């Protein structure tokens, strides 16, 4: 599928708020699902998944902490595996399934992992928390009962400056060894 080179129209929806377009931007169609919902957009291909999530879809839970894939604040799940949304072009997830932190739990009801984070004091400033949760989700999908070393390895790509990681590890351990085990997937 080679994408058509169109003249690039200004489109309706969030992009139109910008009003002025400086020059003809080529926007191409993107369809994917986010937290179970189908999304169709026209975007400029240089947008990252992170930008599209935050700006087009207004899902600001996923954060930009460094822009170069190191800190992990931008981690989301793509088809169930953790990826850096700041290093993923939005077009690369065309026809894929994305899960962000907003997709965990139900309306107003945190899922067992989120609740465990709350209960164990694993959240301080909270900026790294969404990315951390998604990396843990990715880990638990592949390994539902990780030991401490495996948990630490699983979150080794998520930098937390506040907690020193101790209570994060405790929170994950509690959820995998407790009665909540069956509920920790997706």
């Amino acid at each position, binding site marked *: 599928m*080679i994408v058509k080179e169109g003249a690039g129209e200004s489109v309706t929806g969030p992009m139109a708020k910008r009003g002025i377009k400086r020059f003809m931007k080529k926007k191409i169609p993107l369809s994917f699902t986010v937290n179970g919902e189908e999304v169709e957009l026209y975007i400029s291909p240089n947008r990252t998944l992170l930008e599209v999530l935050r700006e087009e879809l207004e899902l600001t839970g996923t954060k930009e902490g460094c822009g170069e894939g190191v800190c992990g604040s931008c981690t989301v799940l793509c088809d169930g595996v953790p990826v*850096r949304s700041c290093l993923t*072009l939005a077009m690369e997830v065309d026809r894929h399934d994305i899960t962000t932190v907003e997709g965990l739990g139900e309306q107003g009801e945190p899922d067992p992992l989120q609740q465990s984070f709350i209960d164990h004091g694993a959240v301080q400033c909270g900026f790294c928390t969404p990315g951390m949760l998604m990396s843990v989700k990715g880990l638990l999908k592949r390994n539902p009962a990780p030991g401490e070393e495996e948990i630490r390895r699983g979150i080794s790509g998520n930098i937390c400056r506040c907690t020193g990681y101790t209570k994060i590890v405790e929170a994950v351990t509690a959820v995998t060894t407790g009665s909540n085990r069956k509920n920790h997937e997706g």
Partner: protein
Amino acid sequence: MIIPEFEYVAPGDLQEALDCLASHGEEAVVLAGGTDLLVRLKQRLLKPRFVVSLKNLRGLEGIHKKDGVIVLGAMTPLVEVLESETVGKYLPALKQAVEKIGAPSIQHFRGTIGGNLCLDTRCLFYNQSQFWRSGRTPCHKDSGKTCYAEENSDRCRSANQSDGACALMALGCDVVLASTGGQRVLPVGEFLTGKGESPFSIEPGELVVELRVPEPGEGAGSSFQKITQRSAIDFALVSAAVSLRVQGGRFGGVRISVGGAGAAPLFLKEASATLVGKPIDDNRSIDATSGLARKHASAFMVENLGSSLEYRQKMVHVLVRRGIKEAVAMATGCCG
């Protein structure tokens, strides 16, 4: 930082991709996992007109063994290399290398083995934002004429920090390149040019499609060693890979490569040869070989990564020695 604009192309199969690369030539870059490319785009180290995504290509993934050759599709995700029984059994150095790449949530799912082999060379003075590099003349790698890592250097002194490339250099690997004109095969030592300004022997229009590693055979063992400041995320300050064979209690073929030194992993032919024929428990010889490896690798090294030159040079000795010992342990362990 927003990525500069480009035209995005997503060919539907390999042939389309090659046609596309042929017509766009040097104006195009290839996007596989993108975990390195996107950083460089944001830093405006390159501003391609076309980005050719390989996301739709099928058939370039997978690992299999055939006729004494272990074949890895260039688009095989790193996690698959890690979990492959074939790789674990025959190419332990590669498995160890891939394990140490970055962190699972960064590269292991999106990154590919081909992408890691093609990781551009790096230098503290080059891999910086556009603003950081402004206000002074660009360096050799940045299409300029100076070097900030080594004063008065007339060429680029960036280093290859790819863990996969270091391991593959020691294991010996052929790189298969495809284009509209057909295929050609290059040994990895030729594919990686050792030139910081242009580290890869890729012609415009070519795409790396396959890696072929010869099956190591009886009495083989390999090991990958890496020095970093943290236990994940970091690029190698220096790395070493050793692939060897043990025959009758003595060293058979030995290949030592060192990464984080030159603009390609250094295959240290002379140092490797000094071990051949020696008993595997001859620690003096192992140490001497390691020292020679350090000496030869040091000639390529400058202070361009985040640690002192002296320290990295010393670590070549330590890592090569540890690599040799671990490779021997693997070789003798699996022989039983």
